Structures are given as structure tokens and as C-alpha cells.
């Protein structure tokens, strides 16, 4: 919108969309596939959102299904009166908030530390090693966690008990499990997430640092007054996106890590949807839950974006 206002000659633009395509057809061609992807995998499936308001039937098309009771709101009422749903909602919020509080600052701090390293070979090695876990599937990570943290056969607990301590129930006690969950999540992602910040840091004008040195600024002062402000827009954008995802959560991480003993804190919305919707065949109920999840996500996203613009930062748009 802004660009159109500042364009000096709208009359020229008006007749030129076709000629733009002609002139830049290679670019539009490149754009075509991603657009098609979005259309097929993101927009077309939205048609089926109406299942949330209808009585699902496997043999009818989504347009033919009858409207659910209570003006289509039956499944929303059912979800919010189901204690399992409320529990999953609570767990999702708690786990994601903890993830945000613990997991969000760590990549930033890590990127700052890494940036201060002078010995580049060491820096590269550390970077590579820390982002490796990002490529491991959660099933494998759970396998590693079992080997390390199992109550009696896990390596960590074996060391603790051999030293005369009491085994720590990392995986089989709800309180400990939550922290194991958070820790594994941070371990898996902080190296990868720090890449964005490192890239942002690389974009800061080095003259600023030189000038600061001349003025007698120390390491921490430079970090605080130059590096952090320099990557602030990046931090804000990533924070907005993280907040927008507060009711989301991948499926594989909680699903792979949960076990029967900790389900009261490990069942989150995505696994709840799987258990009730796909395994329990209650497609309408869980589409309603999914829709609720998305709408809350959008509200949070818009709210965070609005706030950040209010506070004088660039938002997502």
C-alpha cells in the first residue's frame, strides 16, 4: 500500500500489470510454485473447517453434512465442557509459556557469546555441533532421553545412584517431566535458532564498534549498546511469531516424550486432537478444537504485532 502512494505516476502503472508479467515473467514463474503450494496445502484444506460446525459423515461431502446441534456450536460446547480438553488447553499454555520464557532468550545469549569468540575455527565447530540436534527426529531424541534419564537404567541416574544419591524421576514424575520436556526442547533448537541472530549481528555496521572502542567502551558496553539494539527488530519479529504460536505446538515433540505416568501434564492440544479426533473418530469435535486453537493464535499474533508497533517497533507488517 505504501509503495503505491509513493509511486509518482499511477497512470503508467495502471495499464502495466500485463507488461509487468511480460517483463518479469521469470520471477512470476518462480513465484508460481510456492503460490500453488500455499493454495493446495493451506487454502483448499480450509474448506473443511466447516466440519467443526457440522455432523461429520464419512460418506457425505462436506457441503452435504447436516448442521450440528445448537446452531452448529454443539462441538464447541462439548469441547469446553470436557475436562480432558480443559486440561490439554492448560498444559499447552503452561508448556508453551515455559518454552517461551526459557527457550526464547537462550539463542540470543548464545549468539551474543558466539559473536565474541575470536578463534573462528572453534566458533564454527561450536555452531555446527549446537545446531545438529535440530535435524534429529523427536523419536530419536526420546530414545536418547531414555538412555540418559530412565529411572533405573538411565546413565545419569546410574551415576547418581552409584555416587550414593537418589534416582531422579526425570521422565516418570510430572514435575520433573515438564522440565525435561523444556530442557530437551531448548537443547534441540537453540543452536538452530541462534543462526538468525548471528546473521542479524553480521549485518551491524562495524564502524559503530570502532567508534565505540575509540570512545573507550568495553565488551559488555558494546554488546549492550550496539549489538542488542542492532538485532532488536529481529528479536521483536521472532517474539511476535512465538507469541502467535502460544496455543500451537508441534505434534511429535509432546507425543514422543509423553508416557502414561505423566499424561496429566503431557497431554497438549495437538495430541488431544490426535487421540480424540483421529483415533476416536470425532472429527467434528477436534476440528472445532483446531479452529479454536488457530483463532486464538491469530488474536495473539495481531495483539503482539499491534503492541510492538505501539511501542515504536516495526511489526510483521
Amino acid at each position: 500500500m505504501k509503495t503505491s502512494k509513493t509511486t509518482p505516476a499511477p497512470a503508467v502503472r495502471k495499464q502495466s500489470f500485463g507488461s509487468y508479467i511480460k517483463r518479469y515473467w521469470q520471477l512470476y514463474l518462480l513465484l508460481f510454485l510456492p503460490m500453488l503450494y500455499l493454495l493446495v496445502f493451506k487454502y483448499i484444506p480450509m474448506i473443511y473447517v466447516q466440519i467443526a460446525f457440522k455432523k461429520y459423515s464419512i460418506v457425505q461431502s462436506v457441503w452435504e453434512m447436516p448442521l450440528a446441534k445448537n446452531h452448529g456450536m454443539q462441538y464447541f460446547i462439548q469441547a469446553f465442557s470436557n475436562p480432558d480438553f480443559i486440561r490439554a488447553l492448560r498444559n499447552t499454555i503452561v508448556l508453551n509459556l515455559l518454552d517461551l520464557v526459557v527457550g526464547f532468550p537462550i539463542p540470543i545469549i548464545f549468539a551474543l557469546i558466539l559473536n565474541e569468540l575470536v578463534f573462528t575455527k572453534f566458533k564454527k565447530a561450536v555452531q555446527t555441533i549446537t545446531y545438529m540436534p535440530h535435524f534429529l527426529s523427536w523419536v530419536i531424541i526420546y530414545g536418547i532421553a531414555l538412555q540418559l534419564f530412565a529411572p533405573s537404567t538411565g546413565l545419569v541416574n546410574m551415576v547418581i545412584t552409584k555416587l550414593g544419591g537418589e534416582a531422579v524421576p526425570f521422565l516418570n514424575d510430572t514435575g520433573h517431566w515438564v522440565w525435561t520436556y523444556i530442557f530437551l526442547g531448548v537443547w534441540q533448537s537453540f543452536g538452530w535458532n541462534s543462526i538468525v541472530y548471528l546473521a542479524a549481528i553480521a549485518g551491524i555496521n562495524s564502524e559503530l564498534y570502532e567508534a565505540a572502542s575509540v570512545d573507550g567502551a568495553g565488551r559488555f558496553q558494546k554488546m549492550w549498546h550496539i549489538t542488542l539494539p542492532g538485532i532488536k527488530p529481529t528479536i521483536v519479529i521472532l517474539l511476535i511469531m512465538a507469541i502467535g504460536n502460544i496455543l500451537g505446538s508441534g505434534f511429535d515433540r509432546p507425543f514422543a516424550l509423553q508416557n502414561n505416568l505423566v499424561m496429566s501434564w503431557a497431554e497438549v492440544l495437538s495430541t488431544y486432537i490426535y487421540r480424540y479426533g483421529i483415533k476416536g473418530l470425532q472429527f467434528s469435535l477436534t476440528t472445532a478444537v483446531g479452529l479454536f486453537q488457530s483463532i486464538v493464535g491469530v488474536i495473539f499474533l495481531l495483539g503482539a504485532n499491534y503492541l510492538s508497533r505501539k511501542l515504536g517497533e516495526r511489526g510483521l507488517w
Partner: protein
Amino acid sequence: MKKKVLAAVLASAMVVSLAACAAPAAAPAASGGGEAAAPAASGEAEAEAPASELTDGKFAETRSITVEVYDRGNDGGSDPENNDYTRWIQQQMLEKHNVEVKFQKVPRWTEVDDINNLLAAGTAPDVCVTYSYPTVQTYADMGGVIDLAPYLEQYKDELPNLWNWLGETNLYWDKDPETGNVWAVEAKLANMNRILTFIRQDWLDTLGLEAPTTKEEFHDVLVAFKDNADTLLGADADKMVPYSVSYDVGWRAGTLIESFLDPEMTDKEYYINGFDDRKLTQNGTKEAVRLLNQWYNEGLMWNDFAIYSSGDTTEDDMMKAGYVGAFSHNWDYPFRNGEDSINANLKRLVGPEAGYVAIDPFEDKNGTHTKWLAGPVDRKVFFPSTNDEPLASLLYLDFISEPETIEYLQIGEAGVTHEDVEDGAVSIIAATGDAIQNSGMNIDYTITCNGLHLTTDEKTAKSLAYTYAGIDPAVVQAADAIAKTDTRIGVNVQTGNIEAEAGVGDVLSSKRDQIYDLAVSASVADFDSVWDSGMSDYLSSGGQAIMDERAAAWEKVYGDAEMLP
């Protein structure tokens, strides 16, 4: 201009999406309609219909069907979709009925989840197999399953083997008393043996102990194992698990739980509290789990069991390595899988005298050892409504129920998978390569039969003990004898569809597993509160509604009767 472009994009999105959603919607609708129409139409032309389609049991044109087969993911097993047996079946079906058979594998230990996903996606095989009738019922309610009743009647003459083998009992086991619908036929359990408890005979011998015959003796033996871990395991003493129960406690401690039920319980009570086949809601189960909880807190059980999920082989590996003193499982569990069986591994890794034998240690209140069997039914075979070849699929079931087919699949070729031993019995030998049977006696292919069933009863009886390659027949015979002691066979309660059961099976099963796991591993002081809060959650999540509806349905069909004939 921008608006126009946007409008164009949106419009084209709409068109594409409409087309896209119309296509998949049309397909099931069409086949759903076909399902209703087919029996009616063929019913009118009953006299000539079979003749027009089949000549000497063969189709004029080659038909094609897909058949589900369980994938057990065995170490070194053969490809479940392509091995000696699948090729033999394919060739026979082509010769006999001109039907082309393709196999589609479904992981055994997550079969209910997987078949659910396949059904929901409309890509399920034409012939589906599952242990979960609620799954079949749920899809039937949505119109996703073919009603077999009219086909079974109409093609009775074309299906002699199916009718002979399953008979009315199994074909109509799930028949709805009001509507007459048959959504699935029940495979026949040729051998009804269920769960047994096993113990390391060599450990008993080393410690000079007798096989336990009561719970108290069993407990004393476990304590003795634990106290003598250094003698029995040496350096690995801290790895010992005297009694192992893991994922699915309701099955894995089944014999213990059953010993707490009243052996004279009425059929009515057993049915009303019996939606959960792991007996969670039966009277007596709580006390059984309390005993397990005590053993757990005495350090007699596997501390970490609950963090390993279904299909994990950690526990099997511990048994194979010789760390486990006793466990309960399927009556032939330590004998299964030939060279990779638990007993064969023990012989290799621990010593020639090592091995598990069956015992019967859990007495009930009468001093007997009642084993609650399910009835002569096993897996449920059904056709989803995406099946366009119901007759060809039924012919497949007929072929797979033929005595000769069952015998061939169970014992294979002479010299490859079996050899003849004294007076007409056959003995299974370990096969290699594509002749390996991934499941004991190829149960995954004989989908209408579970348990050894050879062409003559005499041969079957004599051969049973020889069906486990590398296992001493005497050990198998002893286990079989115990499994057949004090049995109570389940009766078929035909009350029709219980609405409250639809769609909640998986949720309730997962709650059940949580209750069992939490209760077993709770501290002794917390046991009651953990069990009671779990149960109240279970009952309020649909468990109570099911019991109430079952009670009402029983009274409607059977009146005041407490027992069925």
C-alpha cells in the same frame, strides 16, 4: 488493478478448491450408494446372479483386491507383502477364482490406529482385519463398512469353506439382533489358550525351590530371586527384575487380575462391567492391582516399565538376556519366533539349561485357577465401503478358510518349514529367507483362523507341541495343559449396538492404561487415591454411560436371566 488481480486469484482458488473437494466427496458417496443398491439388485436376480458372475468359481475377467496383513517388524523376518506365502496365495487365488491379490501391511502393534487412519483416508484395504470391534462399529455407523449379511446368504453356495469353518456362530457373532446387519465376521480361535505365567525353571532349580502354586508362594519365590540375585546373575545382579509387567498391565498381569474375580460371577455382571477387555471395571480388579502395587514397592517388579511404550523391545531383550525371573503373557510367548524366541535366546546367551516354563500360581477364592477366555472369536474381518469387489473378497475369505490352505500356510513345505516326526505329527523347523513365518503358524495370513488347525484333528493334536521350532515339546505340552485348566469360556451376548461405546474406545483404553500404570507405580499410601481418582475420571468420561446402557440392553433382551445357556 490490485483488487482485480486479487479477485482473480481468489476466484481461481475457489474454482480449484470446489473441484478438489467435489472429487473425493463423490467417490465415497457413490460407493456408499452402491453398497445399499448391490444386495437389493442382486437379490432380485438371485437365481442367475452367481452364475452370471462366476463360472466354476472363477470370474470371467480378472478382479483385483487388496488384503491387510500385519507387519510385525521382526528382526530378520521376511517381507510381509512379498514372501513365499504371499506368492503362493496370489497364485492360488488367480488359478481358483481369477482374482489378483495384493497385500497391504499394517503395523501389528499399532494396528487400530493405523487402520483408523487408512479408513478415514479412504485408502483401507478391501479386506480389513482388526482386533477392535468398536472401530468397525464406529465406521459402520458412518456408513463406511459393507453389511455382509445379504452377501453371506446370497453367495452361500459359492462359499462352502467359509461357512464350514466359521459357521453361523462366528459369521453371525456380531449380528445386530434388531437390524440383522453383519458388519464383521469373527475369525475362529482354534486354540482358545490365553494368558499364562512363566518362570525361569533353572533359577528355581538353582535355589532348590518348587514351582509356586499360590500367590503367597509366588511372592516368596520372587523375594528369593531378589535376595539371591548375586548367585543367579553375578555381576549383572542389579539388572534383575523378579517379575516383569510392562505396557498394557491389564493383559500382562491378566492371570493375576482374573484370580481376583469371582469365578461364579453371573454372565450379566461380567457383561455389564465388561466393555474394557482388560477387566478394569470388573469387581475385584482393584485388589489385584493393589497386590501388584505392593510388589512394585518391594522392588520385585520392573521399575521403569511405564516409560516404554507398546512395541518397544526393551523388556523382551531383558528376558532374552536372562534378567527376568517371571512374567505373564500369551500362553506361548517365550516359544514364539523360532531362532529368535525368548527360550532359544536364553539357551544361546545364558546356557543350555536356561528357559521359561509355564506355572499356574494365582488361585482364586475357590482355590481353582479360573482363566476367563473370550469365546471362540479372534480378529474381526470386515470390508470397508471403498471395497468394490465384495464377492471377490468373500471368495478370498473362502479360500483362506479352506482346510488345505490353512494347513499349508501353518506348516509350509516339508523340509523347509516342517518335517514329519513320529506317528503322523509334524514338527516346525526354523526356516530361512522368504520362507520365514513372520507370525507363529502364519496367523497373519490365516485371517479366519488363529491356532493350529490341520486337516485332521488327530494330526493337529499330535503336532501342537512340535509347532515351536527349537522348543522342547514337553515344555509346550505343559503350557498347553495349564492354559486349558479351569477355563471359563465367554458367552456371546447379542444385545446389539451400544451407542455409548461408539468413538470412545481408544480414549477409554488410553485412560485405562494410565490408571493401571499410575496405580501400579504409586506409593502404597497413595494407591487408593490414585486408583479412585483415575476410576472416577474413567467413569465420567463415558465408562459409566456404557455400563448403564449395557445393563438396560441386557434387561431388554434377556429379561431377568442372570446366566446365558
